[in-house]
């Protein structure tokens, strides 16, 4: 799984000013729509917010990975936001979120594509050096080169 192929320039938001979780999610969905991954924003947003109600996607370390599988998605996509100021995400470790990866997968996707994306992301995030660099990215070029090198 090459996550760089899923990450379009339109869906990289650095920095993003969002007041709360829902606001951040909405902005990321706009990015995924601009990138051509999400075609029905409301439908996809419902899937993402429903998922959040089953347990926060804030995995700790200041990172959240909201995600949804929905008929509102035409092709798999990944969005990233580096938040201008930390946002509360009901995270596992209680810490506010500073960086968000959002995963969009079509309803019809065969097998476990979302799982493959998640594995690829978590293998990077597990590295504390990667996380430190992620929190310091200042533009989309810095993000893509970081994702490419590690």
């Amino acid at each position, binding site marked *: 799984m090459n996550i760089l192929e899923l990450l379009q320039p339109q869906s990289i938001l650095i920095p993003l000013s969002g007041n709360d979780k829902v606001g951040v999610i909405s902005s990321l969905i706009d990015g995924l729509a601009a990138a051509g991954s999400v075609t029905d924003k409301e439908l996809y947003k419902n899937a993402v917010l429903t998922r959040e109600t089953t347990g926060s996607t804030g995995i700790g370390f200041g990172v959240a990975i909201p*995600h949804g599988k929905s008929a509102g998605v035409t092709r798999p996509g990944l969005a990233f936001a580096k938040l201008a100021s930390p946002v509360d995400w009901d995270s596992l470790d209680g810490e506010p979120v500073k960086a968000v990866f959002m995963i969009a997968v079509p309803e019809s996707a065969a097998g476990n594509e979302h799982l493959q994306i998640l*594995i690829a992301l978590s293998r990077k995030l597990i590295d504390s050096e990667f996380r430190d660099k992620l929190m310091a990215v200042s533009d989309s070029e810095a993000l893509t080169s970081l994702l490419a090198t590690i």
Partner: protein
Amino acid sequence: MQTRTVTIVNEAGFHIRPAQLVSEKASAYESTILIKPEGTTNEANAKSILNLMTLGLAKGAVVHIEAEGSDEQEAVDAISQLVESGFGEA
């Protein structure tokens, strides 16, 4: 040391929420708890959500749950039960 072998039964596999639930449960025990997928050399610390997510276990995957410490029996029982319950998912 206590070991048990279990199979991932929920349709969506071992994504964020199962990893969260296992790490929360595992953190309640003093024992060192490892999850080792069968047929690989991978292993994950059951107390680390990111560690667990990197395993990318799909439905049907077989894992060995290994615990070592003062509460190893309880720990293996609890984690096995959680995995076999399918995390409350279909």
